[in-house]
């Protein structure tokens, strides 16, 4: 059976949860509490040496690249269709996957904003102190990547403004695509909508000035279309944290 190691229904964990529910594939979900640094335990590092979350385990393979794992699910379980099958549409889908994922992309900027605007403000001081103490104990070579976002210093104002500016540019790009289309690529609902939603759904709560009914009406109604899907609602309902409802509120609700 497929196994999914995931954290909160957010970012790439959310995209994979939505996809598995849309495909109606039976899977065993395993919650990895990143705030307890469970992804840095010896047992987890065996599975995912770079401490990446989520992790899809299928056909005995530990799939640590979530964007590629989504492509795998789309091809392994062709129905319902969640990706184009023509080479041109598949190229576009892969280009979107490359563009949306990764430390240099939208995901990193939204994570930085989420950490600094919600987590640092909403997390009880005691929990935050305990979390930072754990991060501080990580070996030096584990402190790059996401751990750098979570390091002891808050991002400075400039960094946050730069991240906001980049998110705004990405949002503008998607907004302009949705002028002529209901979904982001390939003329139909696809794994790219799931990935984009997983990274963007918290932006109206994190930075309301960037994404709202008047500035980005098309993205806002695309978000609402996504929220109406049972698979999306089901995935979002899997949250396990006291901070989560703040971030995962539907726009306008």
């Amino acid at each position: 059976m497929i196994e999914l190691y995931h954290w909160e229904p957010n970012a790439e964990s959310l995209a994979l949860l939505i996809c598995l529910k849309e495909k109606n594939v039976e899977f065993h979900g395993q919650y990895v509490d990143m705030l307890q640094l469970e992804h840095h335990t010896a047992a987890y590092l065996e599975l995912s040496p770079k401490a990446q979350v989520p992790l899809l385990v299928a056909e005995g393979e530990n799939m640590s690249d979530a964007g590629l794992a989504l492509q795998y699910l789309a091809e392994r379980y062709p129905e319902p269709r969640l990706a184009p099958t023509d080479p041109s549409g598949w190229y576009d889908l892969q280009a979107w996957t490359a563009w949306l994922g990764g430390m240099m992309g939208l995901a990193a900027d939204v994570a930085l904003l989420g950490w600094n605007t919600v987590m640092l403000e909403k997390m009880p001081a005691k929990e935050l102190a305990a979390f930072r103490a754990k991060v501080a104990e990580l070996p030096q070579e584990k402190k790059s990547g996401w751990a750098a976002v979570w390091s002891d210093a808050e991002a400075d104002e400039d960094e946050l403004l730069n991240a906001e500016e980049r998110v705004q540019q990405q949002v503008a790009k998607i907004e302009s695509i949705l002028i002529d289309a209901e979904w982001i690529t390939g003329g139909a609902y696809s794994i790219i909508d799931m990935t984009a939603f997983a990274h963007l759904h918290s932006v109206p709560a994190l930075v309301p000035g960037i994404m709202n009914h008047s500035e980005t009406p098309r993205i806002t109604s695309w978000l609402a279309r996504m929220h109406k899907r049972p698979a999306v609602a089901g995935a979002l309902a899997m949250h396990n944290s006291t901070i989560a409802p703040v971030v995962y509120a539907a726009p306008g609700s």
Partner: protein
Amino acid sequence: MLQVYTWEVNSNSGKPLIFLTEKGVEFDFHYIDVLKFEQHQPEYLKLNPQGTVPTVVHDGKVMTESTQALQYLDAVLPGPSFTPGKPLEKYRMRWWATHGAAWAASLSVLGWHAFMGPMVRKMGDEKLNDLLERIPNKQRRIAWSTAAKSTFTEEQLQNARDGVAAGVQMMEARLRVSPYFAGDNYTIADMVIFANAYSLPLMHDYAASDDISPCFIDWLRRIYRRPAIVEVFKLGRTPMRERAEEMISRFAAQDGSE
């Protein structure tokens, strides 16, 4: 007709050249001289606003993501297939094509320091600064400026050498398990990694040699035996070509003495 705007048989630039030569498909090769920063000139930016190489245009479809473009071309062009059929093998191919040459960022630091930097600095500070100013993306401008002026510290250079060595060991571990990166067959993943790794034993023998990475060296040897690989390096116009030719003769001499 197929249009390929690219530079040398090296790194991202080399991917479509290697792939199309393997495929046996004709294409128009538009040489974009990266050492003259031609990829940042207005004419090229009209085609590819990011100012990256390569750009591949097929039937009006403009593709700037090179690894993904190879998968598209493999599906639409005639010739042998370099993509496995099963979803799991495709995942492995894509994983290795995406992450298997991540160490090339470290290699690039060393390459600029030893080779590219001195070459571009021949044009003089004024012209170099002018060309750097035209780079559209700010982060890329800073990265190119650091690279072109080789303002790397000894610590950065040592980190880069460590990065290359760790990358070779990651490849070695995989090639101990299967002959090619995706499994039993030569695929796009091998071409993508080879485009970055083709001269490692020559320039970076502290990281790649028969003693410390025998499976990796054996993989290189098998790829250098492919006629398309010998052929494709003839497209090169810089000393990078000579490095590949030296590898070809080194392996040929070993084959001859076996």
